[in-house]
């Protein structure tokens, strides 16, 4: 039997202790063990971005990220993007209101990447905006409204 490693990390603001296997993927820890089903698996090879989560605020593919490497770090999944006063989180709101959601399967990963991007690039160029979700595939929307949502988040400015 493989050794299990005990890790502590902060997931969506809460301290989580878990015993993980050495090559366990972060996505499996999140979905299968912690029940955070908002993180989707679209390809399991890093090609589609559906499993995107934030680790210390940076977007990564949770299908390529060893769960053990989450130790001591802060992980944010879509369940962690909460708005204030019962409202939707601004990134979620932008996607919903601007029609950037169709089947919704790519949406949680797309939103997390968009949110990280806006945090990292307060004044992005047009080219950077268009490339912001280059690692996330959407089959439904044609991306136009997704890029609209990213642009709205840029224009609104990000208060964190």
């Amino acid at each position: 039997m493989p050794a299990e490693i005990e890790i502590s990390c902060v997931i969506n603001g809460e301290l989580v202790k878990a015993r993980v296997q050495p090559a366990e993927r972060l996505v499996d820890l999140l979905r299968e063990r912690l029940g955070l089903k908002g993180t989707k698996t679209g390809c399991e090879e890093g090609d589609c971005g559906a499993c995107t989560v934030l680790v210390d605020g940076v977007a990564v593919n949770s299908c390529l990220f060893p769960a053990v490497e989450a130790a001591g770090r802060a992980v944010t999944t879509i369940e962690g993007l909460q708005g204030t006063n019962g409202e939707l989180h601004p990134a979620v709101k932008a996607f919903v209101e601007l029609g950037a959601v169709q089947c919704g399967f790519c949406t949680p990963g797309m939103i997390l990447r968009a949110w990280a991007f806006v945090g990292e690039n307060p004044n992005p160029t047009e080219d950077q905006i268009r490339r912001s979700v280059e690692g996330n595939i959407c089959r439904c929307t044609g991306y136009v409204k997704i890029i609209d949502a990213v642009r709205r988040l840029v224009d609104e400015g990000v208060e964190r």
Partner: protein
Amino acid sequence: MSASECRNYHRPTSLREALALMAGSEVPLWPVAGGTDLLVKDHRRQMPPGPWEMMSLKHVPELNGIAKDGDAIRIGGAVTMRELAADALLGERLPVLALAADHMASPQIRAVATIGGNMANASPAADLAVPLLLLEAEVELASCGGESGPNLRRVPLADFFTGPGTTQRTKNELLRALVIPAPPAGMRFASHKPGTRPAMVCAHASAGLGLLMDGETVADARVAFGALADRPIRGPKTEAALRGQTLDEKSLERASEAARQEVSPISDVRGSETYRRELAASLVRRLIRACRD
């Protein structure tokens, strides 16, 4: 739970500890920096059969950082694409490398994938290989040594690759750093990975050029090709075709013809041999224009 045969995880916090673990391991010990290739392989059950262990390189300070080393620049093996793309020193001194890092894979992968992993995996299409070959980078390999510290050796990158997926790195060696000597003053660099999109693409061909002009004449030229042979290569014949020439239509034609001849691409799902040779020729023309104008 996972059917992985990975039996243990190690988290060394110094190079010495990492190398000792490698030397002392009874089962294959896979160093992991980003993990972007390994976890996919494991999940697809493409790892060599039998138990193995994983060693994280994320916490080894000697493998991190981008710094001046005399005239050279040292880049730790665990430096990520994201760090390369954003680094101010590289942006100023070696933009051709920073740009290639920015055009690799996706932002999510760039956040974790490393320069060491990209080189050690030795894909013929490895995105950073073309600029690093142009820059005549050397690979610094470390293995477990005595009291005085690790054994180190340096291998020119052009010799480091030995075939698709294979390198000169031996089982107990770690890719500690890429060392990039200062390029000749005035040499201009450009590289290009054609495709329908800037990133998120496995190159079907890529090329880079370094051009040093002496007035109207080419004083020196460096050419590198990706995905155009069984490993990333330099293009000595194309270089020779350029040296000492003025960059008129005739010499452009000769250089691009030399490129077409000297690459040895395969036909696969990403493109035919004919197309790849055609691209090699095209790219050389394009890069000459980019470096000249």
